[in-house]
């Protein structure tokens, strides 16, 4: 470093480096920030998603108070879908347990199960929409139905994004690139998927407690 070289050439330290607290950044050499870049970025992304749904729920709570509010009856299939999504989250935990033991077959199996359950959830949500339409409940029927379609739709979009992420992780799993020592993609994707599971349960409760 030019500065250091210069200092040594001129010699004679007259003052300790000011404001020195021994701490410091990590740079390329020794990355000691508690979580990795990808984990941090995922957390930040999830924060943004959380704010999106927080904004929508505040709108929901405000409009819940208007006299024109009318509840709709949600199809029972929603409960089954919720269980399916929860099961897909559980499958991820099995996949993570397998990867920690380096059982590659288990990883492939449980990741696939999780993906299939995720897809099933999406198809199930579509079926719920069809049932509502058959019952004559459309997007614009009541404020409650509007929120039902918007919240389920946005959640489904986020989940579909998660499935694209899963495709990347699955490719790594099937090319045996996920090991006990190195499986960050699985960790990060699992975080995202669990979070979407949580968002769904949150939205469902919100819609249920109308």
């Amino acid at each position, binding site marked *: *470093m030019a500065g250091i070289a210069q200092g040594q050439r001129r010699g004679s330290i007259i003052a300790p480096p000011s*404001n020195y607290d021994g701490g410091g950044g990590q740079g390329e050499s020794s990355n000691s920030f508690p979580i990795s870049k990808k984990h941090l970025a995922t957390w930040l992304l999830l924060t943004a998603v959380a*704010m999106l749904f927080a904004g929508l729920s505040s709108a929901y709570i405000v409009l819940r108070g208007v006299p024109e509010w009318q509840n709709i009856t949600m199809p029972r299939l929603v409960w089954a879908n919720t269980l399916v999504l929860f099961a897909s989250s559980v499958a991820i935990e099995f996949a993570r347990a397998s990867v920690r033991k380096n059982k590659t077959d288990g990883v492939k199996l449980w990741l696939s199960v999780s993906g299939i359950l995720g897809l099933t959830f999406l198809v199930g949500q579509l079926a719920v929409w069809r049932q509502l339409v058959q019952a004559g409940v459309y997007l*614009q029927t009541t404020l409650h139905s509007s929120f039902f379609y918007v919240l389920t739709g946005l959640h489904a979009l986020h989940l579909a994004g998660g499935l694209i992420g899963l495709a990347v992780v699955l490719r790594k799993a099937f090319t045996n690139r996920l090991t006990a020592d190195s499986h960050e993609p699985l960790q990060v994707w699992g975080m995202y998927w669990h979070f979407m599971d949580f968002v769904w349960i949150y939205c469902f409760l919100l819609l249920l407690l109308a």
Partner: protein
Amino acid sequence: MTETHSHQEGEHDHPKLGFWRKYVFSTDHKVIGIQYMVTAMAMAVIGGTLSLLMRLQLAWPDKTWPFLAKVFPLAFKGGHMAPDFYLSLVTMHGTIMVFFLFTAVLTGGFGNFLIPLQIGARDMAFPFLNALSYWIFLCSCIVIFSALLVQGGAPLGGWTAYAPLSALGEAAGPGQGTGMTLWISAIALFTASGLMGGLNYITTILTMRTKGLSMMRLPLTQWALLITAVLGLLAFPVLLAAAILLVFDRAGGTSFFIPGGIVMNNKLIEHTGGHPLLWQHLFWFFGHPEVYIVILPAMGIASDILSTFCRKPVFSYKMMVYSMLSIAVLSFVVWGHHMFVSGMSPFLGSVFTITTLLIAVPSAVKTFNWLGTVWGARIRFTAPALFSIGFVSLFVSGGLSGIFLGTSALDIQLQDTYFVVAHFHLVMAIAPLFAAYAGLYYWFPKMFGRMMSETAGKIHFWMSFIGVYCVFFPMHILGIGGQMRRIYDPMNYVFLQPQQPINVFISVSAFILASAQILFLVNFFVSIWAGKRVTENNPWEATTLEWETPCPTGHGNFGPELPVVHRWAFDYSVPGAAEDFVPQTAASVPAVKQV
């Protein structure tokens, strides 16, 4: 810079990149930063032109403009500006300036260019995402610009897009159709681009600082960019949520923002149950943090530049950081002060008054710290220094009127008058603009290896500084006199007619002010190729890490090894030191030679 040179400087031995990969589809944070800046400048020219058209109408509402009738045959039918066109100018000027100039140039431009350089990293954490963020931003610029070109014209509802006007489509006016749809699309794209940028900024600053660079040794610009990115991450998704609901109201038949019983242009609107104030709440929950998204990077840049040219450490560094943090936290609990006249309960109004006035405390702390930095300094009056001092002046002038407007009792009188226009222009438009100018003059040699003309810079400063006060100071008087915002023709109101000479004075000043900005643009673009070449790394004798790299900085930023930091960023005029600045990389302070 030649290829061989960049190979010597950079760590990576990349294959030679062609012109397109190097300067256009680049993932290098410096190129992306400059792309953001230049795009924002183009948007500023558009947004500025729109404001000049507005000033033309406000000063001389009765005059006919045959030339403009040729350029804009629909908007200037018979030489007179159409009222609809005036409203679309208001909307587009506000939208372009807030999002596509200030947010873009300060966080997108300076954020990308400076973060890796000042923290001693080679690039951003996710370079591809960073490039993607720029290209999505460019798309959003094109989409918002196209709103001016479509049939029906640009939206009419102001940059705040208040519902139900924004929710009703063409029933509410020609621009509320396609124009408004394009507005929403552009904002959605901008949000996506901002999210990608924000993820990158936070991750990079937190995880990629070089050895020895602790958080409390960061330059204030870095603190400001970090806090800004967090604000953006929390605020923009709420705007997106509101925009999604708005889209469904417009295209899906829902009634989130549309109450029952609205008659628009003699037509009953068949919606029921919605809540127009809900839009205002969601919009301002985003909108108030947004003004700090604009002002915080400006504060950081101005603080660092002031310290450099005062040759003094910034006064009370820690308080600077803490006050930025408290401004950021408070910014989320003050949005109601934009809605004092919305029928809000007086008690809630008082709560928002108190939280709003609380922001004056950290703002005043910062102001006194800037004064403390300048106090007794032997200031080097360069163009960047002048613009930083101008920033402080404008921030104070605009901030003081904020105390009036934050007080609900007074605001009810002043709401939607030119007093508000004067306030927010000074504090969140012109002050950040001055900081951005300071930054451009200051880091120009780092970007292009040449200096901008100092003489032109000083003329630019004095014309701008006097110009903005001539334009915006009289607006306070207009506002107290009752002139309302978004007014198309002041001469329509008898009580405003005596004030018309002030409007003429403002418009003449605005045209002179605009000519100074042309001088800047000429200086900027001519200097890229013809400015005085910079041979040393550190022409301003500054301490931060970017000045350890050559001008312009090559790919990979630093030499084979990353710099190691031994001190904070403000070791200016250390007693007994040989030079009046000690770089952050210096392990020891060289003493004065004994004679």
